């Protein structure tokens, strides 16, 4: 029996012609979505030469973003990833992904950036209702997006229609 099992595995192995990396995991899709969100958002004019993405409390995601966006551009600018501690605050960024599992820390980040033109994103439930701009959750293997449109407008961010069309909107009359 073991010989046959070995044969089956060898067949699989022998068929691997081109070897690619990555897998269909949620983190990869999340990383792709972060860049895609940015392409559907207009920021107030500023002079930064790079597109800065901050990631709090999730070094694995930050590493994934670094790999994924190396050599790529968002909004026509090269991408720089900032790894931030859970309680670390930075304002000179364009997009902040808040991974902290603690609601009080998330809220502190949101309050600090409330009127800053920073696109705040998190996978934490209740994030959009708490003043975050985009909340992305994975339900039954699919992404679900919730957008707090009022929070975006308060920051001077304009989200274009295609992104709004695939999201559940809150805070918009």
């Amino acid at each position, binding site marked *: 029996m073991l010989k046959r099992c070995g044969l089956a595995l060898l067949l699989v192995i022998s068929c691997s012609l081109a070897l690619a990396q990555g897998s269909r995991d949620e983190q*990869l899709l999340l990383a792709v979505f972060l860049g895609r969100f940015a392409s559907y958002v207009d920021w107030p004019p500023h002079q930064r030469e790079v597109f800065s993405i901050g990631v709090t409390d999730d070094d694995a995601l930050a590493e994934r973003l670094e790999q994924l966006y190396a050599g790529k551009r968002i909004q026509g600018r090269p991408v720089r990833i900032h790894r931030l501690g859970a309680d670390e605050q930075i304002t000179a960024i364009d997009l902040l992904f808040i991974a902290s599992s603690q609601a009080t820390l998330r809220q502190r980040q949101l309050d600090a950036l409330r009127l800053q033109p920073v696109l705040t994103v998190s996978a934490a439930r209740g994030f959009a209702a708490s003043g975050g701009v985009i909340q992305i959750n994975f339900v039954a293997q699919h992404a679900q997006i919730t957008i707090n449109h009022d929070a975006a407008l308060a920051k001077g961010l304009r989200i274009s229609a295609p992104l709004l069309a695939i999201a559940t909107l809150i805070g918009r009359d």
Partner: protein
Amino acid sequence: MKPALHSFCLLAFLGGPACAATDPADDYFALPLESLIEVETAAQANVGSRRNARTAYSATVPIDVITATQLEHSGEIELARALATLLPGFNYPRPSIADGTDHSPPFTLRALNPDQVLVLINGKRLHQGALLHTNGTIGRGSSGTDLNVIPLSAVERVEILRDGAAAQYGSDAIAGIINIVLKGYGHRSHFGLRYGRSSAGDGISRQASLLQSIPLAHDGFINLTAEWRDRGATNRAGADALDGGRVNLHFGDARSKDALLSLNGEIPRGDLSLYAHGHFNERRSSAGAFFRRSDDPRNVPAIYPDGYRPSIHPLIRDYNLTAGIRGVSNGSSEWDISYTLGKNDFAFRVRDSLNRSLGEQSPRSFDSGSLDLQEQVFNADFSHQWGRHVLAIGYEFRHQRYRIHAGELASWQLGGESPWFPGAQGFEGFRPENALSATRQSQAVYADLTTTFSPQLSVDSAVRAEHFSDFGTTLDGKLALRLRPHRQWLLRSSLSSGFRAPSMSQTHFNATSMIRDGEEIVEYGSFSVDHPVARALGARKLKAEKSHHLTAGLLFEPSANLNASADLFITDIDDRIMSTGYIASWNLAALSPEAQAILLDHHVDAATYFTNALATRTRGLDLRLDYHHEFRNGGRLRLNAAYQYARTLIRKVNPSPSVLGVDMGALVLDPYTRVSITDGQPAQAFRLWALYSTAAVDLAFNLNRHGSFFSTKGDEKYKFAARWTLDTELAWRVQPGLTLAIGATNLFNVKPTEWGATDDSVMGSGKPVRYSQYAPFGYNGTSYHLRLGLSF
């Protein structure tokens, strides 16, 4: 073996071109936004980890995930039947003429026993059933968990951990763990209707379900599911040549009507979250016992001049409610406190019957008593992450109560019209002497440590100490290693010990009958291990079954849309608990004079009891291959091939009580029991599941090869050959949210091989019962169904 494994090899070969797929990130970047939102990620699983969900591909131990999509397209209306078609090694035969077992059939994993599987709902323990399977079915002498009490429409996914995990979860996690995850946050409300019937015209099944999702503030939710299920009986019994060619038996599915409710809810408040989940199921079922011909000594011709077939109509109520609170602190610590209350109540009602010993005065219907098992569990878990380490510690308190309620007088009474045949024919009632209420408590402390030394290497370790009030203390451990030497390869191995506490029914079940021997009334039947008769005959307090597990496997992921895995496993179980055969001189020729004297002194004709009887070794192999492809036209193909081999051998037979004068082999291993342990369930199973989806349609195929198995009739061993079955469903999305589906299970009407020629008057080729009730896919043949779903 060969066809199934060759099929797997062929799939592996055909899957080769898939390896040429590109980096999924490039694919994702190329997708328009409206397509990106439709991307399906790999299924995640929580089971086996106290902290983070991870994909089945990246887990330290082998895990299968069955999704709601797979369950929906299976064509089945009950969770156990759906899993039987989707999960190789999940064996769920359709027992018939087996008393209570007809109405709550057991399932097994890896050809082991029904009670050697732990079932969780949302990660919390689900109680076992009260019913002890006492007839000649799979799982004889054990109590399993009834999965069909969960509404299928409430299930988001089912996670199956294919490894021993008692060091993490406690008793029963020997063959594996099944974690049922209920639909939670983000699910839409859904209404479903389904109608089905067999190609023979019977087995009409109707199902209506409503899942109402109520969103709450801060993304909380309450999901309520109500389901009504009416599964018609099937009958594959043949004509009885000894009864004028009449079809007088019922051999097939019981008629089963279920009302089900389930709840899953969560109320987040800052860093705290209150949660609750639970279900209630009421099942009214009916199935027949063996037919008693007119001239049968168990008949009273004045009541049934043409003979009669008693029918058993149990009323089964099952509920479970978990409530808890969990929270996070300091960003790196999590805690969870919960309480679970669950109960299974199995009440026996018998109709179209009589008590022969009461003669013409006998009633026709009986209340034969009931069994119930209640379980309360308190859990407190805490986990903390620092650096590369995650430490989880916890405490569990469990309280179980098992009761036997006596039936009404006529259900067990020995009247004056016959010295034999007391009580209700079909299912004799429990006597007042059998009634009891027994309790047990256990307390456990446990610790898990996961250390990620590098992205390539992580180690999980676990230790659990548990004290049971009835049999003492257990200490178990687990060590699992995950090594990724190359980004496409993952090696994993685990070594663990485990245990299964004797079930409450094995410790306390007793059911005895009376017969008249001249002027003397003597008893026979099953005695609990602490009954004076059992003790005198050598019964001892039951010990826990102890197990040791070794799993070693590798996973190959040449591209994002293809992965294959192979896992070898060995499971040793010592002190397996089994029922003795009848201890009586007419059954055991070598029974000692001392034992015969004990029987005589206690006015007992024959006795059985449970004992720690033997040790077994189960060896096997799991192969998995998953393939996923997104077509440029928007179509999507999902393909999953799986193969399992599991074979159990008896390693050792424990010494028998010296008072009996017979060895344990003679006491517990009659030919039927021996074959049931080693060959009674298919050693091999293969499945190929495929789903092609477009925006408008889903087309699902499920090809199964059910391996061969053996059974006995008398001392003869019979082989039942392997069979292929194909299920299919075509679902059409009429408009957004509205789906109409048509499908068939066992499309080509494959039947199991028949019993060969036998000396038996009922079972055998050309006899009323042609098929084996151990057939893993039943014997109904083809069934068709229509399904309508509306999401809103």
